[in-house]
């Protein structure tokens, strides 16, 4: 094996320019794929983080049918107190759960005594909400990063439109499930930066204030947002929780609760899937580049060395060894190109990280700075694909060489 390697490397250095061009092409492809996957991956992860950590959490539990009509924020589809308690007690027993936050979601009128508009509100336990949705506090651009009873956090678009400021007193008026209207006065405690996605322009009040506005005697929550310790286990835990709650049935014997992961709740999931699809296509392009370039080089190598192949075959080299010799050349080309590509790719990604050059706007969020990171698994997969394709591309020329008739090969001019 060592001798095959030595001869293969020397043969590659015999045609320096061709080897340089081929390895450069492979390296360029690897750099491109690494760069693309790290930037798109970072974009995807950042967006998923934005979606889950500033609004919806990793997964949510609702009464069955609530999500289908979530735009209306139907109060008659809230969880009844027993079901809510059951869900909470179940979540407390799950080791995967980091925290959870029950919410009462409703729509109401927002009045500054001068002007009135509509608003979507979340009634929450602030300490639980801030733990479940850790980026929420960073969205408070003005005011205190806390929420007490009698206070409200309002979205910045609303604040700007209604000329409302921190400390202003406003009134929230809402219709409850029975159709009666009630109002309550709040002090504006903070202005919330908008976030792209569902719930990105909602206001927040204390959950007990929400109960008061809606005249609830017992807490009837709209949803439970859940944060788990390992984000990678979202789908597994969603299935687990769904199984645990499958026994909750209504009077008709149908399931009364349902669990939705962030993928089912956020339209960004489709964008994330599209990014993954594009990554696959980029990798396919890399495979094509490697396949064509290596095959071209190896066909040339076999053609130029026909007499040499005839000689080694004549002196008794077995066909399998001749095959191995050419496969080894393909392997070496692939490995050299991959190593160079990975090293340069990592340097470029490091520079991009340090410089903070890669910025983008997402919805109303401007100047988000991407921190591209190399996923070691992805790097290994890309490297393995390139090396495998390099050997595969060498197979046809190598087979041709190993099956060559020594007499014909020795006669070749």
């Amino acid at each position, binding site marked *: 094996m060592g*001798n095959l390697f030595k*001869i293969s490397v020397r043969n590659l250095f015999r045609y320096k320019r061709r080897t340089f061009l081929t390895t450069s092409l492979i390296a360029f492809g690897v750099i491109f794929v690494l760069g693309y996957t790290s930037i798109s991956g970072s974009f995807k992860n950042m967006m998923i983080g934005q979606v889950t950590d500033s609004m919806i959490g990793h997964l949510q539990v609702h009464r069955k049918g609530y999500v289908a009509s979530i735009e209306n924020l139907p109060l008659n589809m809230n969880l009844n107190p027993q079901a809510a308690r059951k869900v909470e007690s179940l979540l407390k027993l799950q080791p995967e759960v980091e925290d959870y936050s029950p919410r009462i979601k409703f729509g109401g009128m927002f009045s500054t005594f001068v002007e009135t508009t509509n608003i979507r509100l979340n009634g929450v336990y602030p300490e639980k909400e801030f733990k479940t949705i850790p980026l929420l506090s960073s969205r408070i651009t003005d005011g205190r990063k806390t929420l007490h009873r009698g206070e409200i956090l309002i979205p910045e678009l609303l604040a700007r439109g209604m000329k409302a400021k921190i400390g202003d007193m406003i009134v929230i008026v809402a219709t409850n499930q029975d159709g009666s209207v009630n109002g309550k006065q709040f002090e504006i405690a903070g202005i919330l930066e908008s976030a792209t996605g569902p719930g990105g322009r909602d206001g927040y009040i204390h959950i007990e204030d929400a109960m008061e506005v809606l005249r609830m005697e017992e807490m009837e929550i709209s949803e439970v947002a859940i944060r788990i310790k390992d984000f990678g286990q979202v789908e597994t835990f969603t299935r687990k929780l769904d199984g645990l709650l499958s026994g909750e049935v209504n009077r008709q014997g149908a399931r009364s609760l349902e669990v939705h992961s962030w993928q089912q709740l956020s339209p960004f999931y489709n964008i994330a899937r599209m990014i993954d699809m594009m990554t696959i296509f980029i990798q396919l392009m890399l495979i094509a580049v490697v396949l064509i370039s290596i095959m071209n080089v190896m066909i040339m190598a076999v053609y130029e060395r026909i007499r*040499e192949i005839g000689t*080694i075959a004549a*002196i*008794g*080299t077995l*066909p399998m060894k001749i095959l191995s010799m050419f496969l080894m050349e393909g392997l070496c080309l692939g490995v050299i190109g991959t190593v160079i590509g990975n090293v340069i790719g990592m340097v470029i990604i490091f520079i991009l990280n340090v410089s903070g050059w890669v910025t983008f706007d997402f919805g109303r969020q401007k100047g988000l700075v991407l921190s591209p990171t190399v996923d070691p698994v992805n790097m290994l997969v890309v490297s393995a694909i390139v090396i495998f394709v390099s050997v595969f591309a060498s197979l046809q020329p190598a087979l041709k060489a190993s099956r060559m008739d020594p007499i014909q090969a*020795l006669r070749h001019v």
Partner: protein
Amino acid sequence: MKLIQVKNVSKEYRTGEITVKALRGVSFEIERASFVSFVGPSGSGKTTILNLIGCLDKPTEGELKVSGTDVAGLSRKESAAFRGKHIGFIFQDFNLMPVLTVYENIEYPLLMVQSLPSTERKDRVEKLLEEVGMADQKNKYPDQISGGQKQRVAVARALVTNPELVLADEPTANLDSETAYAVINLMKKMKDGFGTTFVFSTHDQKIVGEAEIVYFLADGKLVDEKVKGGKNGQPV
């Protein structure tokens, strides 16, 4: 037992509709440790005979045994293994591997064909380098040595596996007279030193005289045999 036994061997090549008879019922036997030459004009069948003896090709008809083995019945893989074990080759154009040094070219068959341990490889290669007078050139590449030196290396490479038989197709065709004689003398020396049978083809009348037995070929037939020190003109 004779090293090579050829009995009524014919070889035909077919190119499209045309059939070319390269050999027509040739028979001869070659003893071990002999120095034999095939002589004849172009197209007389010299190279075909060497290819058949060297298991690079198969006869269309007849019997062909090398070292007691019916080589006509060997598969492609068996032929390669047989060549690696029993036969060495010297080519007209030397055919050294350009990416390997003189030392590595001689070592190549031991590595790739016989897979010998490194100490034994080193001993054999060093000994042959001394024998062919190339010890001081061992680290040079083929493009750094002369044609005569290349053929010396080729002789060493052919002998390094301790073959019973070395086949050389026009080994001096690309060399000047002086170098050609030097190479032939080297081959004779190796034959005497190692007891190896050398069979070579040539149409250089001057070096034909160096062979112990000369077979004359014309139109695929053996037309004459000359044994050094024996009588002329009796076909086998």
